[in-house]
């Protein structure tokens, strides 16, 4: 990984020559697809134990890279000139790894969209129940995808921004998606209010502590509280800073230790359900 990052900076074998670069690039990408996807039938021949070994190794190596970068001592003067005392020999490789993980992260998000479209496409084709709504979903998906991609490209001046794109994206984004999202989220206020009346019961000592603190905070932090009496905001701020903070910190310790234990288990693929 280290060689990759150093050499990439300078003009070397890692960089295609200027002329007919597009042609070479397309060939190499096609080759990469063939090579990597071609690997699958080979991998498919592996017995289940072999498959698990590959997944476990890949998981371990991905974790080892970041763990090592964190735990290895810095200012590794043996390899690096003393220009940056905050680096060890793995640190320069963090940035390219970032690009790789962003791409895979984006493909993972795309997986969700792919799964969604695939589900509704099948609903529509097989005329399953409510398939009419699947058509609505697919149409709005396609229209919005087109406008969104064109808009983002227009921002990068790769595509010319016409009035139709400008107005169309504004209507679809600012006046439809944004409004639907905001409206949907504000529903919760209604649900809280109806739950406050019908579900929030002072059933026990615990529930009454929770409810009393909640009401104190609700009144103390808003302008009305300051109007009623200047003491209210002070008390509310004290409860938040002196009683609430230690409880939150104890919760944080529990979650942090739990997270560390889980991270170790995932890294070493001890978790049966996962890898």
């Amino acid at each position, binding site marked *: 990984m280290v060689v990759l990052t150093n050499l990439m900076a300078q003009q070397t074998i890692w960089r295609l020559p200027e002329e007919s670069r597009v042609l070479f690039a397309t060939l190499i990408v096609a080759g990469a697809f063939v090579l990597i996807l071609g690997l699958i039938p080979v991998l498919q021949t592996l017995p289940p134990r072999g498959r698990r070994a590959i997944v476990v190794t890949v998981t371990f190596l991905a974790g080892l890279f970041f763990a090592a970068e964190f735990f290895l001592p810095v200012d590794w003067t043996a390899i690096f000139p003393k220009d940056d005392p905050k680096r060890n020999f793995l640190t320069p490789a963090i940035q390219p790894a970032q690009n790789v993980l962003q791409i895979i992260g984006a493909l993972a998000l795309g997986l969700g969209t792919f799964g969604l479209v695939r589900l509704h496409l099948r609903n529509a084709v097989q005329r399953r129940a409510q398939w009419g709504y699947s058509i609505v979903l697919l149409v709005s998906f396609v229209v919005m995808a087109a406008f969104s991609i064109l808009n983002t490209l227009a921002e990068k001046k790769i595509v010319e921004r016409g009035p139709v794109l400008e107005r169309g994206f504004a209507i679809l984004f600012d006046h439809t998606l944004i409004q639907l999202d905001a409206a949907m989220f504000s529903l919760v206020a209604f649900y809280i209010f109806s739950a406050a009346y019908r579900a929030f019961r002072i059933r026990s000592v615990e529930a009454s502590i929770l409810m009393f603190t909640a009401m104190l905070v609700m009144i103390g932090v808003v302008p009305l509280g300051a109007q009623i009496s200047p003491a209210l905001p002070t008390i509310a701020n004290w409860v938040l800073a002196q009683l609430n903070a230690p409880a939150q910190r104890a919760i944080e310790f529990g979650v942090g230790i739990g997270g560390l234990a889980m991270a*170790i288990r995932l890294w070493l693929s001890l978790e049966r359900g996962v890898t």
Partner: protein
Amino acid sequence: MSYQHAQDNWFSAIIIGFIALAVLMNILRAQLGAQLYIRRIPGLDAIDEAIGRSTELGRPVTMIPGLTSFGVVAVQALTIFKYITKQIARFATPMRLLSGDPTVFAVAQEAIADAYNEAGRPDLYDPDNVRFLSDRQFAFASGVAGLIQRERVAANFMFGEFFAESLIFAETGNMVGAIQIAGTVSFTQVPFFVAACDYTIIGDEFYATSAYLSREPVLLGSLVGQDIAKLLFALTTLGGVIAASIAGTDAPIIKLLGQPGGWEAFWKSVLQGGGQ
């Protein structure tokens, strides 16, 4: 305040090493057959009761890992859902698992299939019962709300990480009279689950539930190791506070216990001949 590398204060590496050792040793013990004790969380009795009630009504049961992105919490939520699926498989109660994350959706399909196999009813498994609605928070919430109302769900289990949309699930379940059990490490939503659900499993209890249910050596060992780590944190707090009261809050020993740069400060003061 933040660490870029463990060398900022090697104390961090020592603590991580100690906790890792405590966890891995106990996992090894559990794998070698030692019976590690985990107390039964009251929330589990509530889950069994909810399962019983849903079988009487015969209406579907929903399992919502919510928008939990794939990782630590999602895996354990699926462990709990596998347990529930195995129980309801005996009575062929229909189920829906609704996820808002692509990876969790994919892994859930295998987890639920495994659950039905383990329950000896592979025929009951229908991949369409495990659905991905949307990774948009509120598109997902509306999808779930719509389904709970349309199918008049009997029981609603919500395990995983939740955000603002949690109350829409709980309130909609409340509207159709479903018995609801929630368990989450997202503390911003616990108060609402406490208010609107029949029982709420809070924070670390969530980890203990999946460990207790699965009796997995890995989970049991890990939980025991975590308890040791919590004891370590409690003792460091007590000892440190007393030391701070005696030696002052800017003493080298206090800097050592967790502050970046504390390691050099501590050893420099020790090597320069006995403390400040």
